[in-house]
């Protein structure tokens, strides 16, 4: 039985439909990441699960129990907010104890649970008597997580918990959250904007766009086999290069706008004359002496381990990830080719769906 199940869940604010029928099952103990552009309904989905928003249509169940009409406190969930939402007038201890006190838990047990959370989160026990405003952002985030942990809920909900932290702290807390999940094994839904969090934290990734789920799968599968053009462009940084093209008469090559000819991946039949979008990831391009793409260098970003080459021609701009430092200069000509055996991704120009399935599964 799934720990959480969304069935045809819809949400509308008045006449504005925000979610258009979400179907999703989350396994017990799973760490599920939800990503998508701003305004696609990620928070709304999470808040409906938490009971903070009404469900316009469909059902949500937690542990097999339909929760549509239940108050947040009856759903056995805990949530960590982006801005922490600590109670400003209570000490750190009372912030964590508040939910337990309401549940009339004995004082000794409250203390035991908080002590355990303090240990898990490596909080300084001296901090327990302070007010939230006397803590740093990272410490507040830990306290907010502590408040969720002490409840021992069956589901954790995170809504962009790290986006208010600086880059270094974010890396640290990301690892912490992953460790926490491995330790406690509680089913977790985690909304994020961050590519790295999306790729590394979870066991499965849900990519949303405009109130729909575009794809669900393990991060590597979503990365390697994006089901739609949107997913291909959204996951991965820098984003995938896209070019318009047409399948040639033999069905073995695609002719790009600029006249370049690329061999099609084997394993599928392509209808001759079909209009397609061709996607190639920056790391699958390489600078060569002679290749299909001839461009001018716009700029080079040296990142240390590798460098990003931004180049353009009449058809548009392309980004290529080159190993090591690059000595290319702006204005220079460069010729790029797709690496041997590297995948190229084909999407129907009209439906935006992936054309060849390869070994990856695609959702719906």
């Amino acid at each position, binding site marked *: 039985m799934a720990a959480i199940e969304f069935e045809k869940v819809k949400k509308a604010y008045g006449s504005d439909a925000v979610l258009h029928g979400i179907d999703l099952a989350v396994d017990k103990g799973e760490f599920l990441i939800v990503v998508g552009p701003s305004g696609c309904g990620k928070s709304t989905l999470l*808040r409906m699960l*938490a*009971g*903070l928003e009404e469900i316009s249509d469909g059902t949500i169940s937690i542990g097999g129990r339909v929760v549509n009409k239940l*108050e*947040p*406190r009856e759903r056995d*969930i*805990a*949530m960590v*907010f982006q*801005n922490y*939402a*600590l*109670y*400003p*007038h209570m000490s750190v201890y009372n912030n964590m104890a*508040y*939910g337990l006190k*309401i*549940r009339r838990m004995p004082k000794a047990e409250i203390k035991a649970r908080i002590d355990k959370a303090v240990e898990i989160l490596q909080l300084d026990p001296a901090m327990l008597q302070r007010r939230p405003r006397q803590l740093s952002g990272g410490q507040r985030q830990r306290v907010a997580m502590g*408040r969720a942990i002490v*409840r021992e809920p069956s589901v954790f909900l995170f809504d962009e918990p790290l986006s208010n932290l600086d880059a270094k702290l974010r890396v640290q807390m990301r690892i912490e959250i992953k460790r926490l999940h491995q330790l406690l094994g509680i089913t977790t839904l985690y909304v994020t904007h961050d590519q790295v969090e999306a790729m590394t934290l979870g066991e499965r990734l849900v990519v949303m766009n405009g109130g729909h789920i575009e794809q669900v799968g393990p991060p590597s599968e979503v990365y390697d086999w994006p089901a739609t053009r949107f997913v291909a462009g959204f996951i991965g940084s820098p984003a995938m290069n896209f070019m318009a093209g047409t399948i040639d008469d033999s069905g073995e090559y695609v002719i790009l706008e600029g006249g370049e000819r690329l061999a099609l991946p084997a394993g599928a039949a392509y209808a001759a004359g079909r209009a397609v979008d061709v996607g190639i990831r920056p790391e699958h391009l390489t600078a060569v002496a002679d290749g299909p793409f001839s461009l001018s260098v716009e700029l080079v970003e040296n990142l240390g381990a590798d460098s990003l080459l931004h180049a353009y021609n009449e058809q548009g701009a392309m980004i290529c990830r080159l190993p090591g430092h690059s000595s290319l200069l702006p204005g220079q000509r460069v010729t790029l080719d797709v690496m041997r055996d590297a995948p190229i991704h084909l999407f129907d120009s009209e439906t935006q769906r992936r054309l060849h399935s390869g070994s990856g599964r695609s959702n719906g």
Partner: protein
Amino acid sequence: MVERRGLSRVIPHIVLLAGLLLVGFPIAIALIASSHTAADLVGHFPATFGSHLIDNYRHVLLAGSTNKGAPVATMLWNSLVMALGISIGKIVISIASAYAIVYFRFPLRGLCFWLIFVTLMLPVQVRILPTYQVVADLHMLDSYSGLIVPLIASATATFLFRQFFFTLPDELLEAARIDGAGPLRFFWDMVLPLSRTTIAALFVVEFIYGWNLYLWPLIVTTRENMSTIVMGIQHMVVVADQTPSWNWIMATAVLAILPPLLVVIFMQRQFVKSFVEPEK
């Protein structure tokens, strides 16, 4: 803070000193006058303190400053009950109605808010006759409830609390709901403690307002032992067939400003805090 030098440092002090003199001078006169006998004050005004300070205060507190009025102690008590009743009543009613308006969705919520808001345009002076009629019909004349109840509905205070509640982040409510707090718990555990400084500021303002009320108590009370201190002072000045006893009148005036002064002194820190440091 910008460091100030020269003129820009002197001028604020001059302004402050001028203000201090302006406010302090009448109080000094009242204090000096209340330390002399009535005879000493006829024809000239003494520049120094006399020797009857204690006598005068004891007299007005216990016996009143005219032959017929109530003792000042009674009037002080009446004023205190009225001012406390009004300020506490206003706070209780307006925080509750603001909470309802901000945190609950009920039919005609918008209309309710606007009805409350419109009463801002109807201060006591405007509705004094109908209100008097209502109080008279309810047999509340010459009683504390008659003095207090008609004045405790406050659109201003409701509005102030409403604005304050809007500054509390939504996530606070959501976190509390997830923690299991219902509407009443959220009010007691979150809203009330967070409103502490707003409440303190309102209390100061409303206490002074209630203490200084003149027209309303004048209208609803006729019995001497129900009159308030502000009314009392007025009565003393216009006694018939008698020279006003300025020493006693001044002693009464000094006593009358003490309670508001104490309220300001004790609540000052909270009051200022409510403007500079909302605890959020």
